[in-house]
């Protein structure tokens, strides 16, 4: 648990952070976001004492940071910055081994740990271990930056716009990889960003700052549903309803659905729907039947519209936003949901998405 209580930081005349109070529960990821100069970096750097607050207190699991030896404190807090700051004269392995070396781990456990971390961030230790930072791409360098911060298994990790300097595609990959890592390791993370989409994607709690103060601290869903001020509303963007839908999975709103097993030679079909979904004997999604065509005299087989289940069906772990986008694109009111084998597991309707969206906002 990180607790900031009435923290204030002045730089001469400039008030960088004003009376800021925040609790970040253990194992959660807290994103600090806000316009340039609002005090995000200052807040972050007060936690590992790279900046000393003018007043107020910062406690980690109840113990005030200023009572701890500053280097001992920092060795127990991971630190990742936008410019990465890898040591150019050291190999990737040596960079990752920085904190274990400061903590005087023995060689063997350090080497084992370095390999473990390179694997964790998706880089082959054999290929990358002996490279120098100048030989890495921006994305690779930042993976090493993350590995280096996690080397001594700190409970707290501070990240200042860690993915701010890489191209959008790489950023997307780094984000999803870090989400995976975070799910596994459950660190207490303070994450600074400028990017609202990144914030919404990564955060357990989003803290929106303005001129050194917190204007709203909420879960991404609640922040998008109910921005506290017009500043926050503008900041999260006009498409906040869509952004919010991106936070939910198809599994959250789908309802069970059954497919019709059909006889392709039959010349009549009983269904309450105009276009009933058809599954094969294993329950795998096959397509749909135009019941009007069957009534007009064709066989079910001729009226069957076959599709590739993996392409057509939604996946339970897909986002509601993507489901909505698919519906608009296909011009349909509902879409089937299938599992990895293409077996029909449920359906999502446009009405359900609308209902879900307005219910969340009104809550």
């Amino acid at each position: 648990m990180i607790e900031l209580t009435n923290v204030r930081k002045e730089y001469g005349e400039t008030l960088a952070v004003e009376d800021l109070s925040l609790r970040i529960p253990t194992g959660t990821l807290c994103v600090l976001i806000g316009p340039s100069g609002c005090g995000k970096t200052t807040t972050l750097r007060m936690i590992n004492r790279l900046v000393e607050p003018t007043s107020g207190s910062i406690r980690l699991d109840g113990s005030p940071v200023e009572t701890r030896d500053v280097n001992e404190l920092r060795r127990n807090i991971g630190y990742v910055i936008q410019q990465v700051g890898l040591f150019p004269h050291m190999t990737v392995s040596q960079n990752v081994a920085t904190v274990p070396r400061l903590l005087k781990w023995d060689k063997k456990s350090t080497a084992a740990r370095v390999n473990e971390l390179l694997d964790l961030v998706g880089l082959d230790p054999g290929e990358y271990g002996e490279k120098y930072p100048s030989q890495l791409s921006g994305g690779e360098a930042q993976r090493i930056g993350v590995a280096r911060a996690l080397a001594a298994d700190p409970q707290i990790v501070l990240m200042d716009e860690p993915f701010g300097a890489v191209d959008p595609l790489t950023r997307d990959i780094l984000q999803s990889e870090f989400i995976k890592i975070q799910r596994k390791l459950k660190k207490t993370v303070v994450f600074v960003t400028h990017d609202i989409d990144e914030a919404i994607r990564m955060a357990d709690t989003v803290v929106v700052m303005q001129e050194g103060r917190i204007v709203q601290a909420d879960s991404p869903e609640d922040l998008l549903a109910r921005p506290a001020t017009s500043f926050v509303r503008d900041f999260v963007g006009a498409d906040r309803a869509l952004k919010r839908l991106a936070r939910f999975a198809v599994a959250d709103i789908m309802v069970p659905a059954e497919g019709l097993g059909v006889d392709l030679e039959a010349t009549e079909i009983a269904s309450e729907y105009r276009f009933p979904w058809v599954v094969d004997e294993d329950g795998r999604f096959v397509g749909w039947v135009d019941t009007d065509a069957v009534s007009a005299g064709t066989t079910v087989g001729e009226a069957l519209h076959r599709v590739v289940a993996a392409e057509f069906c939604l996946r339970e772990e897909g986002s509601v936003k993507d489901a909505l986008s698919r519906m608009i694109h296909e011009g349909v009111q509902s879409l089937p949901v299938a599992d990895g084998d293409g077996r029909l597991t449920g359906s999502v309707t446009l009405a359900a998405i609308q209902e879900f969206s307005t219910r969340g906002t009104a809550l």
Partner: protein
Amino acid sequence: MRFRRAAGWIVTPAALGLCLIPPVATAFFRFLFPDVPDHLYTRSTMVTLLGQHLALVAISSLPAVIAGIGAGVAVTRRGGEEFLSLVKGAAAIAQTFPPAAVLALAVPALGFGTKPAVFALFLFSIFPVLENTIAGIRSVPPAVLDAAAGMGMGPVVRLLRIELPLAFPVILGGVRTAVVINVGTATLGAIVGAGGLGVPIIAGLVRFNPAFVLHGALVAALLAFVLDRSLRSLETRYGREA
């Protein structure tokens, strides 16, 4: 390229070696200056003079390197910035003094011999080392230092593991400049009786013997070239690694 490298590593040291062999040197200068009566300075051997010269350079450069790096480190520490312009100014002034004048002024205080020569050479070597130490340390990216501090490296660890290794190639460049300048300047040491390669040059001047002058100058120039080469290769080797 290959030829130039060969020139650096074989031709120059070979030429230096040949200059030190009395019959070879005598033959060479007889060919150049057929009318001069003596072709070889014989009061001391060229090897002895080269040894004295190297000793002068080494004894003066070593403390200068230590002082230059020390001062450079000190003024780049937190709180040391105030002294930065002061130290740089002092070193620059020392640098602009004519070496001969420094020698002349040092003699009353230190007497004749190696002492005033070493003192003057020491003064002249500090500046390039200091200048490059400051430049090298300043060239360390702020993000690198921020990361180092953020991971729990104290100021001393940061200096030893990050700043000095990263500044090393640049500092070595300063040392090289200092040494090369010193090899040339040390020939003036002969004026105050410090020995070295300046001895035959002065003897040649006094006795109107261009062979002596050229011999001393040639050995000094070749020595400077060889030292420059060696230090430069050290720099690039280290620089490539980093």
